[in-house]
Structures are given as C-alpha cells and as structure tokens.
C-alpha cells in the first residue's frame, strides 16, 4: 500500500544499550550545551534513577544547572509554564527529561515556550503550528517502555482551568537524543511493565492500520511488534533480564516513531476519554480496548491486521493460517498477549475491573468523539459506535 502523499520525520538520535546514559555528556557537547536542567518527578528521584543520570553527567564534566522534580502524574499547563520560568531564571541551556510520558511531555511543552519566547503554552495548541529555527537542545531518557514519547512529535498537556487535555503536534517537538538504557526500566514492577508494553503494542497496531500509515511507519510498527512478541512476556517473567528490558525499550521507541508519523485511532481516542472521565491508567485502557477496537475496524482494516499476524505470532502460524482467517487470528493473538499479562502481572481485561461503570459510558463516548485520534481511525465512528465498543469492553 502506498499513500498518494505522506510525510515522515524522525530526527532523534537513538542511544540504545547498557550504560547508554553515560554518553549523555558527550551528546550535550555535540549540541553545544553545558548547563542542562534535569526534569523529572520526586518518585523517580527516590528510586535512584535520576542519580544514575546525575552521576553520568558529573563523570562527563557537565554541571547540572537545576533539577526540576515537580512534574505531576498528568502534565499540566501550569507546570509547563513554571518549568520554562525556572529554566530561564537559572540560565540553563538544555533540557534532560528523565521519566515517563508526563515528564517527557512537560519538557516538550516547556521547550515550545522557551524556543518561541512565549510565556504560555496554550498559544501553541494544535497541529503543526509551531515555527522555529532550532529548539532548545533536548535529551529524553524514558523510564518506562511504552509511551514512545522520546521519539514522538506530540505532547498532551492538561489545561487545569478548563479540565481538558490539549494536544500539541509538531515535528519540532522531537527530542534531539533518545537514550534507551536498560537500567532505567529494570525496576519497573510487572504490572506497570505489562501496562506500558501493551501501550506500545497499541501504538504499533493502530499506527499500522490508520489513515496516515505509510511504508516507513509500517516498517517501524512491524519491528516493534516483533520485539513485543518475543520480549514482553520475558520482562514479566524476569524484570532483571536486561536484554529483555532493552528490547522492550526499543519496541516502545519503534512504535513511537511509527505512531508519531502515522498517528493512532479509536483505541487511543476512547482510552484518552477513559483516562479523563474515570482516571483509568492509559496502558490499562489500551490493553483492554485494543481487541475491541480491532474488531470494530475489521471490515475496513482486516487485511492490515492480517498482515500483522506475521509479527504477532511468527512465521509458522502466519503461513499455516488461511489468508481469510488471519485478521481474526491476529485479534486472538492480541487477546492471548493480554491474557498472559493478566495472568503474570494482574493486568485488567475489562473496563469494569478498572472502575468504569455503565453510567460512565455516555460521558466517555462524548469525550472520545472529539479526540483528535478519532480523525485518523480507518473507520468512521459516531457516539453509538463508541458506546458499542465500550459496552463490549465493560
């Protein structure tokens, strides 16, 4: 399949492997920066993960200018603007974000404010509206293997006044360097490992089947799913398996590149709404909703799902499955993976297990219909379609 027109960009340099963090000091020199601010949260400091980065920077002769560890679970406009103010006040010249999606998105938001000379991130809400010659040097060190935010041109930031999550999309948001070091994820508990891993799987599956999919994003999605098939369960069996941890970090990164360029669809739209309305953890929502989203899209995207069977189950299963059966078996494969995650890590398999009730569904559907991800889903959906998916997954 070749789209009539597509765009693709991934200019983040990836450092992947044991002790990759030790090379951040060198990368800062390449970026002509010497006084970074480290953006993170208190929990990650308490876990000692930030110390790994700080020690590496000290060993590399870099003086950290400031540590901003006040990023909450949900990135917000106030925090983004406050971080930008701290950066300016302390005279920093680069951003190192150490954390999960919220920390990385906060750093991206602050980078917009800093680069444009603004004081309020809200001015730049939207898609492809940011213009700049060069952003503030930005290095992302993910501590989960799921969001892929270290290689995406998107950030989601909460407007605390209006209680809505705002989307910011621009290729300029991509970090300069993404650092995948297995030390940063080996302490993740199994439940979070499963949840974030299924988030990565959802990125890859949705990116592969969305309206904006293209040959380049397809390649990344396929590679991501291959790694998830081989390593997700291994990380659940042995969290200290650094090879498996590194592989899952790579899977999340690859899926991130894919969806940054192809975008995501109805599973993310509904998942975001479940998060906003009922505080369902993003990865949990993804794992629960993915098979139902695939079933909804089946008549339009079935052929694409059939192609994914090769990556979800491997060559032998793919070859022995008749072509007409492959889409259905691909959905079964996703359910099997979710079942594995449920058995080994206690992943929920239904929305009712994460606190969603029948009474919540209309509000979730009304929010989901206005989520930007809905526009690129391969199949159109109205409120009743979304309610159908929600009821099936309840």
């Amino acid at each position, binding site marked *: 399949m070749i789209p009539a027109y597509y765009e693709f960009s991934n200019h983040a340099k990836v450092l992947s492997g044991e002790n990759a963090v030790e090379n951040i000091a060198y990368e800062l020199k390449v970026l002509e920066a010497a006084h970074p601010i480290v953006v993170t949260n208190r929990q990650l400091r308490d876990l000692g993960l930030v110390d790994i980065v700080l020690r590496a920077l000290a060993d590399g002769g870099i003086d950290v200018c400031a540590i901003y560890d006040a990023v909450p679970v949900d990135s917000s406009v106030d925090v983004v603007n406050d971080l930008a103010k701290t950066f300016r006040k302390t005279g920093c010249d680069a951003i190192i974000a150490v954390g999960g999606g919220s920390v990385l998105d906060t750093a991206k938001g602050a980078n917009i404010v800093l680069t444009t000379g603004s004081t309020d991130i809200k001015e730049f809400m939207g898609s492809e509206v940011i213009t700049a010659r060069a952003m503030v040097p930005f290095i992302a060190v993910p501590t989960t293997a799921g969001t892929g935010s270290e290689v995406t041109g998107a950030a989601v930031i909460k407007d605390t006044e209006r209680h809505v999550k705002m989307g910011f999309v621009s290729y300029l948001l991509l970090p300069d360097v993404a650092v995948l070091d297995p030390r940063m994820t080996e302490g993740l508990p199994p439940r979070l490992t499963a949840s974030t891993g299924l988030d990565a799987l959802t990125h890859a599956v949705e990116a592969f089947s969305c309206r904006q999919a293209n040959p380049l994003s397809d390649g990344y999605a396929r590679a991501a799913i291959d790694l998830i098939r081989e390593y997700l369960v291994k990380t659940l069996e042995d969290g200290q398996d650094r090879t498996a941890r590194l592989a899952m970090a790579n899977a999340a990164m690859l899926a991130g590149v894919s969806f940054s360029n192809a975008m995501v669809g109805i599973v993310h739209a509904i998942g975001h709404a479940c998060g906003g309305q009922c505080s369902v953890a993003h990865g949990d929502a993804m794992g629960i909703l993915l098979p139902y989203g695939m079933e909804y899209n089946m008549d339009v995207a079935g052929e694409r799902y059939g192609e994914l069977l090769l990556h979800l189950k491997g060559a032998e299963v793919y070859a022995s499955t008749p072509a007409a059966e492959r889409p259905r078996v691909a959905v079964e494969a996703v359910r099997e993976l979710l079942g594995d995650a449920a058995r080994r890590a206690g992943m929920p398999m239904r929305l009712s297990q994460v606190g969603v009730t029948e009474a919540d569904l209309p509000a979730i559907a009304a929010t989901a219909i206005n989520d930007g991800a809905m526009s690129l889903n391969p199949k*159109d959906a109205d409120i009743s379609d979304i309610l159908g998916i929600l009821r099936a997954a309840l």
Partner: protein
Amino acid sequence: MKTDVRLSPGPAKRTKRMLAGVVFAVMGRGLVACARLDGRVRVEAGSWPEGTAITLAISPGSPRVTVRKQNGRIHTLGSRTDVPSTLLVTFKGVDSALPVLLGMKGILEAFAEHRATVKGDLGIAMSLVRCLHIVEGYLYPDIMTRRILPRPAVREAGHLRAYAGLLGTAANLGEKGAGL
C-alpha cells in the same frame, strides 16, 4: 549575478486562488445555512463556546472565510481578517486546498496527508470536521459524497432547501446568523 528572485503567482495560480475564495465563501454560508436546517449541525455548533471564531484559510495570505458564534447564532464574516480566530485551519497552499474544496478529496484524507495545519482546540476541530461533512452532504451530489465522506450522506433537508438557505444566508451576509 541576480540574488533576489521573486516570481509573482502565474495566472493559473491566481485563478485557483479565486476559485478557492469562492468555495470558501460557499462553505461559510453553507455552515450558517446548515446550522438552521440540520439538527446535527445545530447540536455541534451549540457545543462551541460563545464567541468561537473559526477560520478556514490558505497559506500564504488569502483567501479565507471565518464563521463566528455570537449570541448563540452562527454568522459568516466572509473573508474578514480583523477577527482573531479561536480555531484556525490553514491549508499549506492552494494546491493542497483545492482538491478538498472541490469535493475531490475528503477532509480526513487531507489531514492524513498533512495538507492543513490546525491552530486551536483540536476538540472543536473535530466538531468542525463533522459539520463540514454534513455541509458537503448538502453541497455535493451522492456520486461525489460517496468518495469523500466517511459514511453515506444523510440529509435532514433536501438539496433545494439547502441551496435556498445558502442563498438566503448570502443575502443576509454578516447581519443575521443561524440560531442554535
């Protein structure tokens, strides 16, 4: 050696821009007319905050059209540039815009192809897209809508009533809007 080479748009480009301007004006009036005729557009526009100003434009420069919700009604402000836009949808060039404006390419396909940028609340942008799909359902025949709309067009009023509403809106341009 000549270092500053500036070319003016050729006649073909100027014609395309003129055509885009006409279609923008029709779309703006179509939105106002549909807010009167079609309950689905009324519901969508009813959810927009008071004062919401939505602009469809082509970069660089003109043409453009703005519709604004004021006193609970949708008005078209034509190609006025003095109204700050709450939501600004900008096609990257006239060649990006025309296939969409002439009903040859779907709006969602256009976004997938990065033909336009969106400045503002993406939630309102989603609502606008649904409204534009309904407007396209009235403006274009089924042979075209089958190709560009994500599902078959459903019309709460006939084409003729819609065109009459559109002309009525044109007659009252900027003065009367569609009540919600």
